């Protein structure tokens, strides 16, 4: 049976594939299904988590045959190369990934017997990419810093499916700004405990009041802008609106608490 290959933005749901412990009929059927899936999609390799399975197993093509690697482990490596890679999980996007040139692997076959192999060049890179999936890693999680940001940008541009996938939103700047002002207000509030000068306190209360208007405005802007931002997504079920509501309410709640305490302390 051909299985569906999961693609971004749907999460594979497999954070980590624990070792295969039972080498039984169920496993054999799964391997055959996976093979059919790989063939139908003309793939060089396929990892079980890519079809949403917890089996710790990958299929890779070697000499036109699919090699079944169960519980594979990279035990030694040498050399480093930067390889330009694509994967079915992120259609049409490539990334430069740091890989080992050669790797030594131990793995089990479908009968639970242990084997080892040494892989070089493209075969080594393919294996590394497939094994990564078993540990919850994909091209995105392999990237760091600037490269990661760029990849995320490409993803966001190419995919406006669902807002719940991890991404950076412009709306977060409103919350950042609001938090910044809240901290300022908190500082002002704390310092008011140590000040006796009535005139100064009155002046400080004014500042507190104006800042609170800013925070209020920022939170309202956040809610409105987020709502607008969500509109851009094609398959949005609006479930994210609840989160926006929650974040806004939290912000307003914090503001209310600070203002209440300030009111009685100034």
């Amino acid at each position: 049976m051909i299985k569906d290959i999961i693609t971004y933005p749907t999460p594979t749901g497999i954070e980590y594939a624990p070792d295969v412990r039972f080498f039984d009929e169920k496993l054999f059927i799964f391997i055959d299904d996976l093979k059919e899936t790989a063939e139908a999609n003309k793939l060089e390799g396929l990892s079980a988590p890519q079809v949403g399975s917890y089996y710790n197993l990958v299929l890779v093509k070697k000499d036109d045959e699919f090699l079944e690697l169960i519980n594979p482990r990279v035990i030694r490596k040498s050399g480093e190369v930067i390889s330009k890679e694509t994967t079915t999980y992120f259609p049409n996007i490539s990334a430069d990934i740091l890989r080992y040139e050669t790797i030594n692997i131990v793995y089990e076959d479908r009968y639970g017997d242990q084997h080892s192999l040494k892989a070089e060049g493209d075969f080594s890179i393919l294996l590394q990419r497939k094994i990564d999936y078993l540990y919850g890693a994909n091209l995105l999680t392999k990237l760091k810093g600037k490269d990661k940001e760029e990849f995320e940008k490409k993803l966001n541009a190419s995919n406006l499916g669902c807002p719940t996938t991890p991404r950076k939103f412009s709306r977060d700047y409103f919350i950042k700004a609001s938090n910044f002002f809240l901290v300022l207000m908190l500082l002002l509030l704390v310092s008011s405990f140590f000040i006796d000068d009535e005139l100064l306190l009155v002046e400080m209360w004014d500042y507190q009041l104006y800042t609170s208007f800013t925070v209020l405005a920022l939170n309202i802007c956040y809610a409105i802008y987020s709502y607008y931002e969500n509109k851009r997504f094609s398959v949005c079920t609006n479930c994210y609106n609840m989160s926006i509501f929650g974040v806004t309410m939290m912000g307003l709640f914090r503001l209310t608490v600070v203002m209440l305490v300030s009111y009685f302390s100034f």
Partner: protein
Amino acid sequence: MARLVILGAGVSGHTAASFAAKWLGKGHEVVVVTPNAKWNWIPSNIWVGVGEMSKEEVTFDLAPVYEKAGAIYKQAKAVSINPEGSESIEKAFVSIEYTAEGKEGTTEEVEYDYLINATGPKLNFGATPGLGEGTTLGEHTVSVCTADHAVHAAHKLDECIEKMKAGQRQKILVGTGHGMCTCQGAAFEYIFNIEHKLKESGVRDMADITWISNESFLGDFGMGGLHFKMGGYISSSKVFAESLYAERGLDWVVGAHVNKVEAGKVTYESLDGTVDTKEFDFAMLIPPFAGVGLKAYAKDGSDMTDKVFAPNGMMKVDADYTKTSYAEWEPKDWPKTLQSPLYKNIFAVGIAFAPPHPISKPMKTPNGTMITPTPPRTGMPSAMMGKAVAQSIVDMINGASEPTHTACMAEMGAACVASAGKGFFTGTAAAMTVFPIVPNFEKYPGTGRDINGTTGEIGLAAHWVKHLLHHLFMWKAKLKPGWTLIPE
């Protein structure tokens, strides 16, 4: 009046002793038997090993602490247990041999009503030729398992740094010295602390640092790896460790059983059956752990060590030791009350109890050599076991017929803060929590662990936490005011 005898005063033994003494009060007796004069906060030995802390900062004298706690302290090592007494002594007793200055070699039989075996490991350097003789560290490598070893390691590292400053390239090797080691975490911390130290000393470019371990993948840590939420993404310890090693420029070899250590060279067998060597100028290899070699005798004096202890010298408790294949292993095999199945008044905690099986996948080379990390049971789980057993015994002394508290590694989580370099502004550490320690595939289908209880983060803040924990735990172990409020 009942007497509770505790063998060993490490993390678990000391926790058990201090709580038992507090809860039992003056009406009963708590006796601690340990060959060491000082207590050692072992996790901080990592920092001693790179010269960032002194031995004095991680140790303190036990005698005054036990005096304050109201426990009797005997600086001696336990030799054997007579759970049924002997022909001349009616009650159960332990034979001990004093190690305190001026009393060396004096023996004594200490009778007990309850016994906690918290002897910890025997550092079995002798298991790998060249790593050492018996429990003595060899001349080629260093260790950070004890405070003295760590001081020695720091000296050797300094010599190494001097050579680098003089323009000599140095090879540094850190990891496990045998295929059946545990405590990869300590070596993990040490390699990153060395890297940090070399950077601070301005000689990082003169060193080739390599990790060698018996884990079958980087980040296994003897727990079959773990996955955690990190920076918004769910990731595994393998991905985390691999990227950290790449970032810090460290090389690695895993699935390795070091089978010989010579001057400047280790020989190791890999999981694929190949035998290779690795050269080094400085090497810290963790030895495998074994039981301390306690004997057990029946009333008639016949040896029954094999009934009370597992073949590796660790004490059998309420675990299921019958399952041999990986497919059969279940979380419920793990001990709960840590009570000996033969003698209801004997318990074993920390490294001293025999785990039913590893947590990581057992692996063998084609030649039949086992290369599998043994389960970690130090630090937080250790202390939790000590406290639970102390509670059980206190309740049993007060009339309960069965242990009332459990500390099962399949039901408890652990938090670990692994240092990756010390410095108030430049330090880093990885903070990880894992729940449960032994994966439970029935309860948590898929990964076997609760993703909400399993998180990880690396950064400077975690280093501060680590440093704070050092002071907190030293404070707690010294039983200073408020010590009961500090968690395990």
